[in-house]
């Protein structure tokens, strides 16, 4: 087990370097000069442009910039923003807790509602419930998330007035409820479909027949035997999804004015703050890598047939 974890951690190093390098290069080929952009519509001052460029290390060759950046990263230094010369770490520190909160709430929706729907549909297969759940999940997946977001905002925020249309305080759980639901909606549908299919398959498994034959009580069969075995793919999905939820909230955060990572990323892209983008992706990749490791370990716990050497 320990050796397995160590090997996985070692494998993360090239992946981590590869991802950051890829994003770093991608950000650097973007058209538009961030230093020039500080002057907006107005003509820039070449001497000041040179000064700022030098100051932020943007006059170095690309490979040096990357090494420089990674070197700083190892010491916990994410660099400074081009506009305003502020530490990027401060911006990330401000945005991540917000996104984390939103992601955890969305994730909880996926977990609770998703599995509940899946179980409902799976256990009572080929009934009206099953068809309704299937149709619902299909609809959720087919409609673009921003259409959902805007409609729910229009209905609950504007027409009914149950919530504020946009989030005023990104640290308020109540206000984050609607955006979290929108963010978790697609995942929720996948979780429901996944658990439904998985349960449906496992219902016919031999061990189920054995359990029924042994005369075990129904709820025990369902919870101990059926669910435990059926939820393995669901767990893996949920595990890797937490990272996706954090980084993929650009749309939801934009619609509901949540000042999280997605918003920060969007603004950084518009202002060509390359170091901010790379910094965020770095953190997201770390989250993703660690989450997938945890999922794999969890997998062994759920499925005794799998042993890591």
């Amino acid at each position: 087990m320990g050796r397995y974890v160590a090997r996985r951690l070692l494998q993360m190093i090239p992946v981590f370097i590869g991802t950051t390098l890829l994003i770093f290069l991608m950000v650097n080929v973007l058209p538009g000069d961030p230093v020039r952009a500080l002057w907006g519509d107005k003509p820039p001052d070449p001497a000041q442009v040179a000064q700022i460029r030098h100051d932020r290390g943007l006059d170095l060759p690309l490979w040096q910039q990357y090494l420089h950046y990674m070197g700083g990263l190892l010491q916990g230094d994410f660099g400074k923003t081009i506009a305003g010369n502020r530490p990027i770490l401060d911006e990330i520190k401000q945005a991540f807790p917000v996104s984390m909160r939103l992601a955890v709430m969305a994730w909880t929706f996926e977990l609770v509602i998703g599995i509940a729907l899946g179980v409902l549909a799976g256990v009572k297969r080929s009934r009206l419930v099953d068809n309704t759940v299937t149709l619902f999940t299909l609809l959720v997946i087919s409609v673009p998330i921003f259409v959902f977001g805007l409609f729910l905002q229009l209905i609950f925020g504007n027409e009914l007035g149950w919530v504020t249309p946009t989030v005023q305080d990104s640290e308020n759980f109540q206000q984050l409820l609607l955006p979290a639901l929108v963010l978790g909606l697609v995942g929720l549908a996948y979780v429901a479909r996944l658990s439904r299919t998985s349960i449906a398959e496992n219902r016919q498994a031999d061990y189920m027949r054995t359990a029924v034959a042994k005369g075990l009580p129904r709820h025990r069969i369902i919870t101990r035997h059926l669910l435990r075995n059926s939820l393995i793919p669901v767990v893996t999905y949920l595990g890797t999804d937490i990272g996706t939820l954090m980084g993929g909230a650009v749309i939801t955060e934009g619609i509901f004015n949540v000042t999280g990572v997605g918003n920060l990323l969007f603004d950084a892209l518009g202002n060509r703050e390359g170091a901010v983008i790379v910094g965020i992706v770095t953190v997201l990749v770390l989250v993703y890598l660690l989450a997938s490791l945890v999922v794999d370990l969890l997998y062994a716990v759920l499925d005794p047939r799998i042993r890591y050497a």
Partner: protein
Amino acid sequence: MRGAKSAKWVAIAGVVALGATACGGGGSDNGNSGKVDPKGIVSYANGEPQNALQPSNTMEAYGSVVIDALFTGLVHYDKQGNITYENAESVTPDKDSKVWTVKLKQGWKFHNGEAVTAKSYVDAWNWAADPANGQQNSSWYRDIVGYDDVHPAKGKAKKKAMSGLKVVDENTFTITLKNGIPYYAYKLVYKPFFPLPSAALKDPKKYGESPVGNGPYKFKSWDHKKSIQVTAWSDYKGEDKPKNGGINFKAYSKDTAAYADLKSDNVDTMPLVPNSEIANFKQDFGDRAIEQDFSAINTINPAFYTKQWKDIDVKVLQGLSMAIDRDTIAKTVFHGTRESATGWVAKGVKGWTKDACGEYCKFDPKKAKAAIKAGGGVPGNKISIQYNADQPHKDWVVAVCNSITKSTGVQCVGDPVTDFAADTEIRDQKKVKSIYRSGWVLDYPFNGNFLADLYGTGVDGNKGGFSDKKFDALTAKADKAKTIEESAKLYQEAEKELQNSFPGIPLWYNKTLSAHSNNVKNVEFDQAGDPILSEVQVFEK
């Protein structure tokens, strides 16, 4: 001298495509007493300033509005575009408009008690001109003699002070310019010409985070990306003494969020209602809606360096201009919130005249078609209009294109560029394919700013590579005039001349569209689109 100056530009304030919506009932009556509370705090929907709060380093809108509350400069201008004196007792040019003598009002102090003297100005300007201090607005001093020693195009400063700035006595200094500029006093309105206390020059970093000015408001706190708070300063000597107790500049990342807050009285006013609410804001706010003239103009400009427009007959451009149904587009796409332009100068500045563009800015499809034909047609019979897609330009660009195609048969498509940064780069590098959209907000309320600074041969603001000798001669003459009035008149002649060369096609004049909450009254905006915050009165709760 007359490169385009940077006044301020609106920072990329969120993306309009992400337009959320808000609706529901209009403003609720929150039952205020109707009595004014002189200690009440006004909240203003702002954003996070781009840079530290230093006057010479602030050009975008979010920082500008805070700096304006904290600092008071030498002069300002009124609604007619006339100079008014603030910290200056007088600003007088010599007969060539080359040497300007500035006399300060006596007894003014900074918030920290230091006296505001001639030295506070001269030292601040010299400090800001040095590239080592990284002040973005430093090129504003370029008209002053000795600027090039302090701020060479490349490398370090050769001298620490501009020889054109001389302290005469405690309250007097002189500015010597390289060339005479009759309207130079207007430039002194801008932030780089504000004074700084001596301590701020010693520790700029600290004072950038907690600025000390000489203005109506005193700095209180800055919670990054959340709010900046300032309080009314009781020792203020200027005319514009605050009628409220202070201002809370709240940072919003989306204008739609600010709009929702404004409707629920959680913020008192905002700079501009979001594009998605232009159709609704008058209905949402009733008599609390604000619609004011704003000295800015929208144009589409041909890239004269391209093969298509290089040797074009001006009749073609006149024809294209006549093919655009400005009034209908203003009525529909803009929901009546813009006004068709009749010339190249924005309204509300000195020297503005009606109909400078004459018949060529009036919609007439028949004449348009005939003119284009007479001019030999549009090369390729196809044009494209470049715009940045991160701001709400698409709607009107498509409508303009449609109008052109329908009236004249010339193919026209929008050419969106992802965002402003990329758009600017293409324009700077002179890689526009056909025509680009352009807009200009006044630097100073003088018609010359919209003419010489945009269409003079080779000036920085002239992105389309336009060049017309006749026009250049007329503007040069206007710059040699003895008085501002005379100069403005001569510039009017230059504007008329543009009919015969058409450097850009004028489209609309902008307006400031805003509203205020139930908590306040007397909310107004000036012609630069900035709120006049010191006049706002807050009701007792």
